[in-house]
């Protein structure tokens, strides 16, 4: 059970965290084009299986339909949305404006990130903004919501009510500092955190111990990032092309040891086992499933890991019409 103030968090994700139910979130990758149908279809696949779904914000600097627009479409499709906002493309004016906009649109969760550098995206010639960093953006969001003020001190006419989320990478150096970096985000207002992919469960457990020692898990829902590696190409991509992902050697060995037509299943099995192991680590509040292009497989992964829709239904009980919003 996580102590979340009443000022924020009106959605299913906040309810699951407050009630101490093992939460599940997932990621919807928006399309590179103006087709709402893609988002709607992915939302329909996830509805009823996750507490909320993130719509990514131009992941890795590759342009996609905007997160805010994707959230509106996903919510109409029946799944609670998490809007992602990175510091990569917006200065403090645009960030605050989008945060207020998300509040007005009734999006119950925001996920605030520093963001990847545009250098490796499809517009490496773009100006990297980084006017604020992830900690400062989280700070700014809490200020907007709880004090009803902009960074300049000017008052808002109405306060947004979203739950504030952040990210952390437990595996990137300096490792000794990673739990404390999350501590900074929690100190300034982060109420849930979604981590980078966990392939190294032992390393994650070490980080969780530091998180517990700092008492962060009592104030912030820790959602472990997981995802299936369904091909050797995906393994290669995640290991080499996605900044900050750590894939221990034994994961690669395990996938290479099975016949090629069985790799997809082996990757899904590994993901299921990872979730089961993560559930045993004290202080973990849930999982965040990232399966770009394989959203259809997420319900099965969660169900096999024992985080199926039945868990969700009990989490939803007593929340009335909030879910349908």
């Amino acid at each position, binding site marked *: 059970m996580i102590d979340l103030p009443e000022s924020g968090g009106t959605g299913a994700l906040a309810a699951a965290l407050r009630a101490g139910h093992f939460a599940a979130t997932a990621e919807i990758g928006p399309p590179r084009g103006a087709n709402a149908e893609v988002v709607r279809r992915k939302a329909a696949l996830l509805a009823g299986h996750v507490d909320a779904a993130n719509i990514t914000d131009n992941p890795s600097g590759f342009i996609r339909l905007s997160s805010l627009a994707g959230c509106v479409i996903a919510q109409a499709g029946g799944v609670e949305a998490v809007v992602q906002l990175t510091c990569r493309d917006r200065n403090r004016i645009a960030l605050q404006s989008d945060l207020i906009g998300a509040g007005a649109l009734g999006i119950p969760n925001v996920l605030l990130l520093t963001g990847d550098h545009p250098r490796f995206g499809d517009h490496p010639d773009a100006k990297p903004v980084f006017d*604020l*960093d992830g900690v400062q953006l989280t700070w700014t969001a*809490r200020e907007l919501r709880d004090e009803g003020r902009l960074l300049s001190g000017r008052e808002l006419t109405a306060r947004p009510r979203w739950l504030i989320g952040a990210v952390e990478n437990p595996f990137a150096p300096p490792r000794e500092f990673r739990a404390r970096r999350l501590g*900074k985000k929690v100190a300034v207002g982060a109420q849930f955190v979604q981590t980078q992919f966990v392939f190294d469960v032992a390393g994650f457990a070490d980080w969780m111990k530091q998180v517990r020692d700092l008492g962060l898990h009592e104030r912030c829902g820790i959602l472990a990032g997981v995802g299936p590696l369904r091909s050797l190409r995906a393994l290669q991509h995640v290991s080499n092309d996605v900044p900050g992902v750590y894939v221990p050697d034994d994961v690669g060995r395990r996938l290479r040891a099975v016949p090629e037509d069985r790799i997809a299943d082996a990757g899904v099995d590994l993901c299921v086992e990872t979730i089961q192991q993560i559930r045993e680590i004290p202080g973990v509040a849930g999982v965040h499933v990232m399966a770009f292009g394989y959203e259809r497989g997420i319900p099965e992964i969660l169900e096999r890991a024992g985080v199926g829709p039945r868990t969700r239904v009990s989490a939803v009980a007593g929340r009335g019409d909030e879910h349908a919003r």
Partner: protein
Amino acid sequence: MSVGSTGAPEVPAAGGEQWPRPIRPTGPANNPRAMYRLGQVLLPNPAYRTVARALEAHPRAEAAFTAVERRVKERIFGCQMCGQCTLPATGYACPMTCPKQLRNGPCGGVSQTGGCEVFPDRQCVWVTAHDRAASAGHGDDLAKLQRPVDYREFGKSSWVNYWQCRDDDLWTDGDGLARQYSVRPPA
């Protein structure tokens, strides 16, 4: 966080130069204990404050002083002249030399060997900051909450600001934004 799709079109940087321009801090900065001692010498005091006020009253003198500051700090720290120096709280590794100019710690893109996400062959400035601060017994400094940068101060002398105690609210120990707003109120 997400796995983006592959197949980015290669857009070469104009003129073949590496961009963003990597920065290599050198020399004395690699001796953190000496840096912390120097930091003590530069702490604001009435004499420095008088000097700083006098400099601001004489624009040509201030320009010359700022040029010297730029020359020295560029050489030692890769200074970007943000005008609001946070070196004493970051192990004397300048966070403005990070390609994302992050002032609150490293991003999630640091490689397993401590390499920068943008320049993999170079050590992440926050890995340097962590090593230096920890080795000098200042590891706790990195937990301080750094407020957003004021872009109006870019190009100005941070010493002139520092000696007049204008930098006092650059960072805070607690969650102090509630009492002190991050952006300084307009003068």
